[in-house]
């Protein structure tokens, strides 16, 4: 009894955020006379927002378990960054510093996860406590001062300084970064091939084939990949931070969509009791969500101090809110159980574009925050209203 027009309406709802994102990009392209689409600005969009993608991927898992958030990530970013900064300023190697930062992040995540999962401290409170504590401890570690980072290996690897790009191994002396071009095109090809092969195997097993919307999305995504590749190649090549972002997004998309533990995040958020009675260790699911969040906060800490070439006690403030907002704009449910990495990417890009666009136009940071707030409210509003219509 489902009518054709309805399925189009449903598709429009499903891709609502993409449509809005495109609209916002067009809006700022006009406002900035196309400046926002300059290669350098695309590059900056990625570099400046690296931490958002990484934190939002972790935050999504927390939110999936029932709308739970982690307020401490901003402070943990600062704390791990501070530890790494101090270590490197005392002559530690980049490798050891990175390892310690990740482990400290993980340990903090486990600590918070323990209270939340096994002692049933409400996540809001447990992480609010962490937010205060680790902000304070960052100050202690840095003794209130900024610590400069001049470990060149570290900066190059994690997106800081002038040389944080993958070098052009295939340079022809021309303007374009050939290696970047090659990698981008190969990845686009692999993506297109694996997706179509997936459709084929689906059909072979007698399941539904690809819908028009799916085909259209693939074409758009591949075109987008090729275009970004070209833009980056015509600037300085692949920023190293993009590798980390891509790796995190790929891995977490895979985990949420294809693995049992990924499935359990959704199940716990959908109905915890039913999940427990199905033989799933639900406490462990909460624990993993927060432990993992700590780990990714460690990685975000690395990216943050590398980008700034220094560690300061004020770093990371408000990062938790950027991550949370990206998830909700990206369609995650505030009640848990619903949300995808692909949505989070859209949410983070949308926030990034708005930030960048307003900076280029020259609006003050205060207005930028106000606009961010409005966007968040509108995004959730659209989500709520479209769900109501369905009922």
């Amino acid at each position, binding site marked *: *009894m*489902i*009518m054709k027009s*309805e399925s189009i309406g449903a598709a429009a709802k499903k891709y609502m955020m993409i449509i809005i994102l495109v609209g916002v990009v067009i809006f700022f392209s006009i406002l900035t006379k196309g400046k926002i689409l300059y290669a350098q600005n695309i590059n900056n969009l990625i570099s400046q927002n690296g931490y958002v993608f990484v934190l939002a991927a972790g935050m999504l898992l927390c939110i999936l378990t029932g709308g739970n958030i982690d307020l401490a990530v901003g402070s943990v970013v600062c704390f791990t960054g501070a530890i790494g900064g101090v270590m490197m300023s005392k002559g530690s190697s980049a490798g050891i510093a990175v390892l310690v930062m990740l482990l400290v992040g993980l340990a903090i995540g486990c600590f918070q996860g323990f209270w939340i999962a096994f002692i049933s401290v409400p996540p809001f409170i447990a992480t609010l406590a962490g937010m205060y504590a680790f902000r304070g401890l960052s100050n202690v570690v840095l003794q209130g001062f900024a610590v400069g980072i001049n470990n060149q290996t570290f900066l190059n690897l994690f997106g800081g300084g002038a040389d944080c790009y993958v070098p052009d191994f295939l340079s022809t002396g021309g303007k374009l970064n050939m290696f970047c071009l090659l990698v981008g095109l190969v990845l686009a090809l692999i993506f297109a091939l694996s997706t179509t092969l997936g459709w084929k*195997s*689906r059909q072979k*097993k007698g*399941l539904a084939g690809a819908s028009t919307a799916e085909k259209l999305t693939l074409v758009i995504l591949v075109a987008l990949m090729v275009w970004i590749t070209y833009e980056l190649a015509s600037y300085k090549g692949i920023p190293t931070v993009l590798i980390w972002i891509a790796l995190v997004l790929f891995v977490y998309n895979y985990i949420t969509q*294809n*693995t*049992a*533990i990924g*499935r359990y995040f*959704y*199940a716990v*958020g*959908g*109905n915890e*009791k*039913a*999940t*427990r*009675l*199905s*033989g*799933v*260790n639900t406490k462990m699911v909460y624990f993993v969500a927060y432990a993992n969040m700590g780990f990714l906060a460690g990685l975000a800490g690395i990216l943050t101090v590398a980008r700034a070439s220094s560690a300061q006690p004020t770093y990371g403030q408000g990062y938790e809110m950027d991550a949370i907002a990206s998830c909700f704009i990206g369609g995650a*449910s505030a009640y848990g*159980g*619903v949300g995808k990495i692909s949505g989070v990417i859209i949410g983070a890009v949308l926030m990034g574009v708005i930030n960048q666009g307003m900076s280029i136009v020259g609006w003050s940071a205060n207005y930028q925050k106000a606009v961010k707030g409005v966007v968040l409210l509108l995004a959730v509003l659209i989500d709520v209203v479209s769900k109501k*219509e369905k009922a």
Partner: protein
Amino acid sequence: MGKILLEMKNITKTFPGVKALDNVNLQVEEGEIHALVGENGAGKSTLMNVLSGIYPYGSYEGDIVYDGEVCKFGNIKDSEGKGIVIIHQELALVPEMSIGENMYLGNERGFKAKIDWNTTYMEADKYLKMVGLTESSKVLVKEIGTGKQQLVEIAKALAKKAKLLILDEPTSSLNEEDSKALLDLMLGFKKQGMTMIIITHKLNEVAYVSDKITVIRDGSTIETIDCHGPEKISEDRIIKGMVGREITNRFPRREGVEIGEINMEVSNWTVHHPLYPERIVVNDVSLNVRKGEVVGIYGLMGAGRTELAMSIFGQSYGILTGGILKIDGKEVHLKKSPTDAIKHKIAYVTEDRKGNGLILSQSIKVNTSLANLNSISTATVIDKDKEYAVAMEYKNKLNTKTPSVEQLVGNLSGGNQQKVLLAKWMFAEPDILILDEPTRGIDVGAKYEIYCIINDLAKAGKSVIMISSELPEVLAMSDRIYIMNASRIVGEMKASEATQENIMAMILKSGRGA
């Protein structure tokens, strides 16, 4: 023929893509109890939502004539202003507030800025007395039982000066004693001139209280039966109207099943309440179930049946203080987790599908595979094609009515949700299935299909424990019956020897009777 108080004429209500109500007509006389029956999804609740203004005027076609005038309700306040009050199936009380606060919630006595608590509690007490409650209205709602909460709902409706009271499945969460009291209360109100509409699945209740019965099927009125007419009203007569055909046998026969060895045995099982450890919830219970056997546990709500089942299922409930569990003759000590129970091939199919059973926001596919994801994954990576195939297999096997297994479970009817829940546990490949009220709140047709599934399970050599508070169901489906009352097993008999009378007698004899 008395005065027509309410007439709903040619009501048609369309949701995007679905016609929920199609030219429905309903006439209710003043001072009668009018029953509205029909299968799940037939449109009973939609019709009542139209009447009470939840679906406002303009969102449906047709007319509501109440007390001689055409009504155009924009919201619930409008209809309540006219004295039409609906009591929903799910209780709408705030547990942390007192009875009096609940009764006047949104309808406060005194002024908006200053509530007159004296009047509130005095009036509340008055209405509580009318429904036969002796509690003070200052008692918190969470401190009284479900039966009494239902009565508070009715008192709340009376406080709104109801002239037409609509009760949507008022007894679905009550035990037999409380149900009877509620129905008698309704008959009492009728004598005082109140008009009532009752929606219910329990046909014996319909026969007991109603003056007229309107049957709705697939969004249309099929017929209105006058209970005081020449034709005698039997349950079969009503069922025929509901499903559109005569169901000759409500319970499918199970034939040629060989009952084997004892598969699971529980002895001296004692469980205490998780929050009040001094309270014994399951007291020294012993029972066993054989391969290929369906064992019924009959007991009223609150007898400790669910608690017994859940405590066997990996101590999911309460504190186990004593007892031995043997599976296949060997004593096992399950860890305090359902995971361990599933490993020992036990499945517990909950009575509370929405609360404890299903993830409504997820698809049929995801729900089906949840309890046994390992079997379709390698190194925790799920094989999605296999998962889809499994979901399809069970959809076909259980005849779940859905366009696709990607459908969200929350969009299914109760009967189909129950099938998904069964599919989940069948896929977990248990040897012992504990089914807790497997047919609660689902319609006659779906019940029959669930019974067939139970028979198939027994044929496949599984041991089935079926907990139920519906006596006819227990009598027809079980090979052997345990009777549970006040946290003890008070009797055991072969189904062939059991009758409604001797089961009830056993409960009464056990002291604290029903």
